[in-house]
């Protein structure tokens, strides 16, 4: 007989045990979501340079804000989150872990961390790739931190949604693609309830580059970058904690579904 493992040992064991999963199909889809748009932009920029044209900082802003932040980051979260505990629930492998003396909430975080690390690595690579197109070096650290912080929060949010709702991915998609775009017409208080606001606070505003139809209906508010990062990290931590609490409280039987206890 052995003693129950600590929370840290559980997170470490689960993260290490499931890390190889990120190198399978789903992991490469996540990598592709960053690599393909950045790679294409890079190729186009190189062609332009060969024709004697300079890099266009506006192009970098466009790829960063319109493609990575608005589209790819949410899709990455929607793809990666089900690979966490939700997949174990559906494949009925979760009872093997729940029958262990390990803290249940730590299993969830341990399964999510490899996906966070994998996605973060590609986001950092993508941001570095954008520099080659002609991004402002002064904005590089902010962009990296913004994407990684938002990835942490969005992955955690989707993991929580997957545990709270049977159609968590659908609710997630609705949140990202219906709620977040409304940031442009939200009053200041509601702007702060979007990832977009905090990303822009960290990465630098693109207000100077927006076209007429993209003008804010309300005055754009800014949050100090440190506070914005703190908000993203704290929100992510809160979502992981809530998801862990939900998993701990939910009786999950051999069928992999919830049962009335």
């Amino acid at each position, binding site marked *: 007989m052995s003693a129950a493992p600590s929370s840290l040992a559980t997170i470490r064991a689960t993260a290490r045990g499931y890390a190889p999963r990120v190198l399978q199909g789903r992991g490469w889809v996540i990598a592709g979501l960053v690599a393909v748009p950045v790679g294409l932009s890079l190729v186009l920029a190189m062609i332009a340079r060969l024709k004697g044209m300079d890099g266009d900082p506006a192009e970098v802003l466009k790829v960063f804000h319109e493609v990575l932040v608005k589209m790819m980051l949410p899709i990455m979260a929607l793809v990666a989150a089900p690979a966490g505990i939700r997949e174990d629930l559906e494949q009925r492998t979760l009872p093997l872990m729940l029958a262990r003396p390990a803290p249940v909430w730590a299993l969830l975080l341990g399964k999510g961390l490899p996906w966070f690390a994998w996605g973060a690595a590609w986001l950092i690579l993508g941001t570095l790739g954008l520099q080659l197109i002609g991004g402002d070096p002064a904005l590089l650290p902010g962009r990296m931190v913004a994407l990684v912080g938002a990835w942490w929060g969005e992955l955690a949010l989707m993991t929580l949604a997957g545990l709270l709702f049977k159609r968590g991915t659908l609710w997630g998609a609705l949140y990202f693609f219906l709620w977040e775009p409304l940031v442009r017409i939200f009053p200041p208080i509601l702007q702060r309830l979007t990832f977009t606001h905090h990303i822009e606070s960290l990465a630098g505003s693109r207000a100077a580059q927006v076209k007429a139809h993209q003008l804010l209906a309300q005055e754009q508010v800014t949050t100090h970058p440190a506070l914005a990062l703190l908000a993203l990290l704290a929100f992510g931590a809160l979502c992981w904690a809530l998801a862990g609490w939900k998993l701990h409280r939910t009786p999950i*039987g051999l069928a992999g579904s919830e049962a*009335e206890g």
Partner: protein
Amino acid sequence: MITLDRASLRYGPILGLSPTTFELPDGGGITGLLGPNGAGKSSLLQLLSGLLPPSGGGVKVFGEAPFRNPAVLARLGLVPEGDRLPTGLRADRWLRMMGELSGLSGEGLKAAVARSLDIVGMADRAHLTFARMSKGMRQRIRLAQALLHEPELLILDEPFNGLDPEARLTLMALLRDLAARGVRILVSSHILGEIAQLTDRILLLFRGRLLAEGTVTEIRQLLDRHPVELRLTGEAQVLARWAVEQPELAALRMEADAVVLSVRSPRDILPRLQKAAAEGGIPLRALDPLDLNLDAVFQYLTKDHA
């Protein structure tokens, strides 16, 4: 070791297990949990392995409620039914993780993984991914993960499903060996022959109810109202003439050189039969009870409750 006090389990409006009471004492040995599909076997095992809390009543394993209780879970191992292993992972690495989740670390973990793989005969194939393993190999790995932390109680849900005959025999030998080492084993099956080969001690479940517990013989004794079939081999005509005079006789069937009696209360008629044969009153060459086995017990009991 295990105490159920009117424990029941509901899945929403569906009753998985009716209020059930029984105890399993400490110590090693194999107990078979028998019942057809939907009898409540898995529900009972889920209560005992701490996956689900009871909807009513109480469940205690090692004196404590098992649901989300590390003190209990550290002492039991679960082999769930079905081919449930995470795809794309290597068996040895996954076992290492499961060992760590059981509180093992360092050299102890390494030794536990090696020992478990050795017990299930998979030491040389553990580097394979689950996708490259046969069903029998994956079943062995499922058993290995449950043995890592040397549990005092091993719970197996339909472990023989999908295994070829050779793998079944290997698994049975393995379970007997573990029981001999002092591990209490609770194994469920809907196939009577499997359990009969493993153990004499059974819990019989049907439609969410515990119908009976004890040895096959003990349970059979509860069934005196049901006729038992005895084949008497010898001169059939003479044997039949003796049989029709016995008050316990319920039915009689003639065969070429035997007569098959259906009798109530075999414990009353058997001594008289043996005495008559010993005194030369009847030409009896052999006596074979035809349905004093698990199949018959199961058929009778389930027929009563159906």
